[in-house]
């Protein structure tokens, strides 16, 4: 597409954004006028303009037209146009629902085309767009294609992943059915590509309904075991940089993670063996220095470790996994250090390996301090969090706190949450907890969310032993000239509740406490001020001696007439309360807060919401539980799976095996209506042309004699049974039949009403035009009768049909592109143009009828090989009917020009 290339260069040459926009607008105007023009655009131009629009869209500009033209391309005959149409649709049409029905129509046609290339395009489009309307239209069709016995491998792969996609977007529309059992058996497929795609699908489906796919476990283990134990060359191109089928291995290992360890001892043993082999391989020297080799190998290793952790049942494996990860912690590849940290997080939660993980604490702390890469440091934080327990909490919290001072802004909030949780969870004495939280606020006040400071207050209120210490500590912390607003909040609340516990010290007398708090007041936001006002009224209750000072503050215009309603209301109410209420009432109203009910920490909930990676085992466990619940409720799937599969495969063989007897077992008897011409007077009777496509029938008939034929051909050999029937009541005398010069001995007499049979053996030596002649002589009632008929032995009788894919077809079509190899004929239809009849004729002619190869479904395409003694001649044919004109165009391409010509002549006579 030269125009497209020119346009792209133009865009690239634009010096400024404005120039680019100008050029694009010019192009858009041009395309719009072309689309709107009176002249109908040819496919090529349509494709070019749609492609330009796509380019413009991908540059980041909006496209609001051209969708219709793209949809038109979908039904184009030309592969490129169709391909571009589909590309445009999958990139641009997400929600344009008014076009969906048109698109669905085109997809439906391509899915039923039986042309694997087109089917793949259509399946890709469904997967790419994945809209609900599409799911509704094809959710039943795609599984059918997937498990059909005659579906090509590449189509199966597309269908499997397309189904996976539909299942993710609209799970309710993809019901489990009899196909599920067959899908599981795809794990046994010969083609590793099919197995890979199927494993992805099964993994997703097994998560949804584990019970239905339980049989996949043993199959997956068997498959995995074969891969793991194979030599690196066994799997040919599925070996990736000396690693046997890494993608498939990883997917199988992931599938196994949908299930608990296998109950069957043998399977379980085999799986353990696999996992051990994978762990062993990690210790072997690398087979290649390329990073691809180590990546692929370690990808499998990490996935195996994930499975070991998931099963969480084999202590030896768990410890081995942990040691392996420990090695990676010090690896020079940053990627491996990162993954080791990540993977160890999950390992830390297993009771079998928790202690083993803890031995690496120094390495992890070192990683936190020295890793240059923030994402690695973040994984180190995660791991420290995961490996933390009572024994090492102080050390870990201290390290995390000190890291917090220099930590990247992007991860500070998460660290704060983690520190807060650990400090609470493992606090032995709560003074440490209070210190830790105040340090958090000091080092990273901006990142301390409300949940964190709510929590510290809840804990202080619930625990008497820490209240005095808390009051003292916040009082000291508030002395800092600049302190974070969060500290003011915590300070205000705690002093308001427990200021009395430190009021005995003259350095923290009530007035000093109040002044300290109030000095921060004007720097704070409205919610904090509101909180401080509440602290003040609490002070009035705690310390009657400062009542006057506080009332004065409340009475000031800046409070009573504050523009903020909340602040104003609090000031007014608190002031009135302090003026009219008696001490008793005040004491009751402003009593110390009751303990908070113990419940799950709100910080933990927040961390969960943030979905900190790899450290939320509770979630994992929930999933497991859900799965088993699902598994329990879903009824066991019906088990005639093997039968079904057996049925499927017989269908496959029937379809793929070439029919042995050609033209004899056709469903439609297309020739029955032909009237046999009376050819008595002709000295040399040509055989009826129907014999070109038919092997049996009456070859010749007059008042005396009927010649019937039955013949069969195989490769370059044939056998013909000739039946001579005497129609009269008297005997034929001196009966002789000969082919060419060769005389065939026959019984010299044929009784009246009797039939004589002769057998001719035929061999095709080379390609030929003329048919052999059968001469018959006999005496009937004294007169010598002489009859000569051509035997219906034509070149096409030595056809062997060849089934092929459209790719193969077009590849050969291209190879047979020399001008003399092609013969074409355009001719008028002599019979009615019935599709079924035409199909039967082409098959009778001897060629395989290839469905779905020609983009135009009304055309017929056939392929076969002509066998002669010396050579074989590959033949392709294409017949294009034009019903309006009542014409046909027949094209033949064979490797030999004479064959092309002869076959074309023969076949063109048939329609």
């Amino acid at each position, binding site marked *: 597409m030269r125009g497209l*290339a020119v346009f*792209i260069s133009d865009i*690239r040459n634009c010096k400024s954004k404005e120039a680019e926009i100008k050029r694009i607008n010019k192009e858009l105007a041009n395309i719009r006028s072309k689309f709107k023009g009176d002249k109908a655009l040819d496919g090529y131009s349509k494709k070019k303009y749609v*492609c330009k629009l796509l380019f413009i869209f*991908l540059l*980041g500009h*909006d496209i609001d037209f051209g969708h219709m033209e793209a949809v038109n391309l979908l039904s184009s*005959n*030309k*592969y*490129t146009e169709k*391909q571009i149409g589909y*590309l445009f649709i999958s*990139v641009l049409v*997400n929600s344009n629902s008014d076009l969906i029905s048109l698109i669905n129509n085109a997809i439906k046609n391509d899915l039923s085309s039986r042309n694997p*290339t087109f089917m793949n395009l259509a399946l890709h489009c469904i*997967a790419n*767009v*994945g*809209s609900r309307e599409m799911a509704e239209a094809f959710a039943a069709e795609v599984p059918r294609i997937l498990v059909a016995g005659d579906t090509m491998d*590449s189509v199966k792969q*597309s269908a499997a*992943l*397309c189904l*996976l*996609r539909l299942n*993710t*977007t609209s799970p309710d529309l993809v019901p489990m059915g009899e196909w599920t059992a067959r899908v599981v058996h795809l794990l046994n497929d010969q083609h590793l*590509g099919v197995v*890979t*795609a199927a494993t*992805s699908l099964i993994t997703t489906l097994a998560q949804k309904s584990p019970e239905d796919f339980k049989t996949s476990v043993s199959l997956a283990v068997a498959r995995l075991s074969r891969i793991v134990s194979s030599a690196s060359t066994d799997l040919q*191109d599925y070996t*990736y940089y000396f690693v046997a089928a890494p*993608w498939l291995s*990883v997917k199988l290992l*992931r599938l196994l993670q949908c299930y608990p360890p296998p109950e069957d001892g043998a399977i379980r043993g085999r799986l353990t063996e696999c996992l051990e082999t994978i762990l062993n391989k990690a210790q072997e020297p690398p087979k290649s220095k390329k990073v691809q080799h180590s*990546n*692929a190998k370690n*990808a499998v290793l*990490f996935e195996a470790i994930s499975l070991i952790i998931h099963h969480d049942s084999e202590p030896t494996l768990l410890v081995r996994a942990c040691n392996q990860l420990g090695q990676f912690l010090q690896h020079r590849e*940053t*990627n491996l250090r*990162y*993954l080791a940290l990540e993977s160890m997080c999950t390992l830390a939660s297993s009771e079998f390996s928790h202690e083993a993980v803890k031995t690496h604490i120094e390495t992890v702390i070192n990683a936190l301090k020295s890793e*240059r*890469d923030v*994402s*690695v440091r*973040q994984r180190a934080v995660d791991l420290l969090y995961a490996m933390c327990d009572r024994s090492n909490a102080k050390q870990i919290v201290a390290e995390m706190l000190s890291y917090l001072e220099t930590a990247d802004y992007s991860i500070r909030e998460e660290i704060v949450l983690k520190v807060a949780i650990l400090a609470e969870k493992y606090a032995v004495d709560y003074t440490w907890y209070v210190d830790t939280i105040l340090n958090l606020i000091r080092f990273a006040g901006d990142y301390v969310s409300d949940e964190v400071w709510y929590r510290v207050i809840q804990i202080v209120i619930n625990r008497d032993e820490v209240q005095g210490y808390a009051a003292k500590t916040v009082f000291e912390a508030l002395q800092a000239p600049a302190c974070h607003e969060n500290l003011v909040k915590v300070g205000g609340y705690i002093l308001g509740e427990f200021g009395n516990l430190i009021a005995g010290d003259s350095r923290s007398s009530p007035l000093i406490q109040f002044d300290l708090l109030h000095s921060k007041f004007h720097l704070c936001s409205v919610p904090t001020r509101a909180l401080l006002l509440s602290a003040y009224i609490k002070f009035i209750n705690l310390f009657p001696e400062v009542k006057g000072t506080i009332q004065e503050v409340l009475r000031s215009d800046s409070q009573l007439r504050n523009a903020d309603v909340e602040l104003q209301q609090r000031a007014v109410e608190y002031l009135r309360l302090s003026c009219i209420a008696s001490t008793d009432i005040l004491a009751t109203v402003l009593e110390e807060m009751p303990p908070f009910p113990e419940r799950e920490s709100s910080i933990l909930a927040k961390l969960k919401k943030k*979905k900190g*990676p790899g450290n939320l085992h509770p979630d994992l466990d929930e999933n497991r539980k859900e799965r088993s619940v699902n598994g329990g409720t879903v009824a066991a799937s019906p088990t005639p799976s093997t039968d079904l599969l057996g049925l499927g495969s017989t269908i496959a063989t029937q379809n793929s095996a070439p029919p042995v007897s050609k033209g004899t077992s056709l469903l439609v008897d297309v020739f029955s209506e032909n009237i046999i011409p009376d050819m008595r007077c002709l000295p040399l009777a040509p055989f009826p042309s129907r014999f070109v496509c038919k092997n049996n029938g009456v070859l010749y008939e007059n008042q005396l004699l009927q010649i019937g034929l039955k013949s069969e051909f195989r490769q370059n050999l044939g056998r013909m049974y000739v039946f001579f029937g005497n129609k009269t009541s008297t005997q034929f005398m001196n009966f002789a039949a000969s082919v060419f010069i060769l005389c065939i001995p026959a019984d010299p007499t044929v009784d009246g009403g009797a039939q004589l049979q002769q057998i001719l053996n035929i061999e095709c030596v080379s390609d030929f035009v003329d048919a052999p002649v059968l001469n018959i002589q006999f005496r009937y009632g004294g007169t010598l009768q002489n009859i000569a008929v051509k035997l219906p032995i034509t070149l096409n009788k030595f056809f062997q049909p060849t089934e092929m894919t459209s*790719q193969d077809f*077009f*590849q050969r079509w*291209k190879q047979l592109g020399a001008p003399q190899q092609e013969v074409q004929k355009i001719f008028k239809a002599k019979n009615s143009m019935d599709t079924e009849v035409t199909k039967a004729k082409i098959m009778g002619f001897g060629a395989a009828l290839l469905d779905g190869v020609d*983009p135009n479904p009304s055309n017929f395409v056939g392929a076969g090989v002509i066998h002669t003694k010396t050579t074989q001649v590959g033949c392709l044919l294409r017949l*294009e009917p*034009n019903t309006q004109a009542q014409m046909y*165009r027949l094209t033949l391409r064979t490797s030999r020009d004479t064959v092309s010509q002869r076959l074309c002549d023969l076949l063109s006579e048939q329609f």
Partner: protein
Amino acid sequence: MMHFLLLFSRQGKLRLQKWFTPVPEREKKKIVRDMTTMVLGRKPRSCNFLHWKDLKIVYKKYASLYFCCGLDAEENELLALEVLHRYVELLDKYFGNVCELDIIFNFEKAYFILDEFLLGGEVQETSKQVLSRSIEASDMLQETMEEYMSKPAF
């Protein structure tokens, strides 16, 4: 599964974008912006993995182009790196020493090749031979079909 694959240059120019889940246009632009700033801001010799929202980001630089993909949390990062590598190999095989310009001028080919390899964010076929064969076949099909179909109607 993979959620998206982006190819962008050192200057942050987007060269290819493939979305395996439906994402509104506005959101796409935001993701592209986030990815380019995040990935381009990484120091050399950093690790190739990042966390972003609930996705794993895996990226790798090939010459002047960055290949960057977003994965589900349970996906295998190392293997994702090799998915990127295999795609580069396929492009390389098709274009012969692929460079950024090849992808700019033949963007539709780059998409077609990707479609042979990945579908719905999952690896469809991993064999380079099978893949190159089907890519060649569709190319061949393209040429031959044009010739096949070009005869004027009768």
